[in-house]
């Protein structure tokens, strides 16, 4: 390939896609980034086999043609280290010469035709929504998905679309976060798919520089999803498996009759304190709801104990519930609202946080 490009633009787009490339992979080609130059534009593609990120730019001054597959990590370090306003890549025998300023690298690439071809998704269901709002739903839900291997549906985030609403749900079987937004989705019938966590995380990363009114176009077919943001497009395999019937576990008000409003900052501080003495394994902290007081405490043999009390408006019976403090901390870390409502029933029933937004977080207690 022959390519001449402003260094800054090339670097910026390379920084966007290169982190997708795995440092170790059974397929060496995944360690490469595919460069394609054509008609004054450059397309960079990287994949880890599950998620593919492709971005194109055509800011002035790009010239060249052809394709090359070069090792992503090496290329990124090399371009970063070069000086000068422009870089050039020339194919020379088995090597590609990368020049910038007065310096030159010789990089060993792979045959670009070996790089997996990413076909666009033809047909399929399409929905376009405001990017920032969509990312906020992702932020409010992704943390609750299972990170461990082998939970399939739990390893993704459910996207549910109706003509007027878009909902994301994630759960690891012990807590569940649900966030929805009103939107003219343009779909005529309800649809749901499970988006891979990794894909959503990359979407968050790729959205950095986009304007606030940017939109994301989501296209899905039976087994793939693509998400397009301007000139950047992300492809991922949908998560296999059946998402559990989450509506069945969202408790009705009658099932968890007690409700208290909580000042977020105080609550967050108290959870943080209680986490300190919650121990290392099978961590738990206790929430005790008493007349107009919420006491958050933990005790662990060999560590010690802690206790914080905050005022609340509560007139029901004394209720003590134990939770994994990490489940509460995760929620507070990812949900920015300043006031929260917590609903509960007894030590063995789910606890449920809601905010002024359309956001529900359900946590199962620890009972022994």
């Amino acid at each position, binding site marked *: 390939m022959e390519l001449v490009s402003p260094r800054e633009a090339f670097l910026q787009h390379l920084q966007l896609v290169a982190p997708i490339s795995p440092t170790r992979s059974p397929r060496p080609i995944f360690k490469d980034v595919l460069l394609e130059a054509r008609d004054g534009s450059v397309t960079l593609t990287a994949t880890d086999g599950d998620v593919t990120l492709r971005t194109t730019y055509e800011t002035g001054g790009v010239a060249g043609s052809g394709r090359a597959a070069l090792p992503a990590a090496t290329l990124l370090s090399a371009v970063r280290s070069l000086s000068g306003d422009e870089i050039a890549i020339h194919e020379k025998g088995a090597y590609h010469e990368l020049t910038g300023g007065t310096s030159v690298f010789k990089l060993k690439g792979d045959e670009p035709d070996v790089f997996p071809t990413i076909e666009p998704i033809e047909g399929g269901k399409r929905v376009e929504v405001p990017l920032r709002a969509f990312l906020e739903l992702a932020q409010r839900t992704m943390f609750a998905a299972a990170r461990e291997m082998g939970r399939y549906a739990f390893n993704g985030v459910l996207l549910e679309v109706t003509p007027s609403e878009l909902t994301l749900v994630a759960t*690891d*079987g*012990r*807590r569940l976060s649900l966030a929805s937004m009103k939107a003219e989705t343009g779909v005529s019938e309800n649809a749901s798919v499970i988006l891979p966590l990794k894909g959503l995380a990359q979407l968050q990363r790729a959205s950095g520089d986009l304007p606030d009114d940017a939109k994301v176009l989501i296209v899905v077919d039976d087994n793939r999803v693509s998400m397009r943001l301007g000139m950047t497009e992300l492809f991922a395999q949908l998560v296999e498996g059946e998402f559990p019937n989450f509506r069945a576990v969202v408790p009705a008000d009658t099932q968890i009759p007690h409700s208290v409003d909580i000042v977020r900052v105080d609550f967050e501080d108290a959870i943080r304190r209680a986490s300190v003495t919650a121990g290392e394994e*099978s961590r738990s902290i206790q929430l005790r709801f008493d007349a107009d007081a919420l006491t958050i405490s933990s005790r662990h043999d060999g560590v010690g104990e802690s206790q914080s009390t905050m005022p609340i408006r509560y007139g029901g019976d004394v209720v003590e519930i134990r939770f994994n403090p990490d489940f509460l901390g995760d929620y507070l870390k990812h949900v920015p609202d300043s006031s929260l409502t917590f609903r509960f029933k007894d030590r063995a029933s789910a606890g449920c946080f809601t905010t002024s937004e359309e956001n529900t977080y359900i946590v199962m207690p620890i*009972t022994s």
Partner: protein
Amino acid sequence: MTSPARTILHADMDAFYASIEQRDHPELRGKPVIIGGMGKRGVVSTASYEARKFGVHSALPASIAHQRCPHGIFLPTRMAHYAAVSRQIMDVFARYTPLVEPLSLDEAFMDVTDSETLFGSGETIAKRIQDDVRDVTQLSVSIGVAASKSVAKIASDLRKPEGLVVVPSNTELMFLAPLPLAMLWGAGKRTQERFAARGMSTIGDVQDLSIEELREICGEGGAEHYWHLARGLDDRGVSPAREARSISHETTFRDDVADRDALHAVLLDLSEAVGRRLRKHGLKGTTVKLKLRYPPFQTLSRQAKVESPTWDDTLVYQCARDLLDATRTTERPVRLLGVGVSDLVAADDVGQTQLFGARDERMLETLDAIKDRFGEGAVRRSSSSTRRHDRGDEIYDPVD
């Protein structure tokens, strides 16, 4: 067998769960008590001896149990409570020897060889244990006394409840010969079927076969194993494993297998066996281990962590499968496959409740009860039965 004769006890509680309920609720004594089988679709977990007279036994569908014993008292299982009683019983066993190897909540092996000078013969110790267990828990236990684990295990089952059967050393052949093949401990379902297909019905029929004849029936590895087993020759020691470190199952293929679907099917079987043993021991674990052997002897193992302790077959399987798929097995045939779970904790210490889990746990208990009664083949997932590979018997890998 060159080692000096040992004295091994196998103690097995009588109708454990049902007896605990009768003890705790005096009004239930002498009445047909049935644990499990509450819902219409459930199955019986344990039946009291009174209920057994009506033909109610473990793994019987609840609907039939209700028909056979309409006046039966059906109760839910209280696993955490049974586990607490189990600890009391194990403590009694430990009074007589440090060598106690629990097999599940309600049974254990003990090696009392070195305790005989202190407490008397194996038979005397067994009687004392029966008395102590009754004192401490008001429950009864049946005990078999023999020179090997397999014979002691068979003996404890012969005269329930509160039975005591002693098989003196060197009388094993006579003792075992008339017993039905189904009592040959450690003989898997497939092996039993192969024996039955030849018209064999007693352990004596196996004793009559030469090792060459056995080889034809159950292969190279199996022949020697069953030749010894049928004679009561079993030199496995009692390993005091109060804290089991891992539970695993593995299988060696007769012919090396490269087909990934077939390997997945085997993994599912192994994972189910592991899950079942975990539940039987009341344990959950957080590390899933895959063991793989390429011929002839290159063995590798891979492991993955799950977030919270589990005994769920499906989760164990999915992890093991992901680990297998991450290896290059498509390129190389596999000789041996194993699945294990480690980093074990007592299940009742794991208090985290589940959003969707309750139903699944009940289903697992039901399936376990069915398999206890009818054997491993009684219930299978569709995906594990679709592609079955010819393989050797699963090796029962004691808790290590």
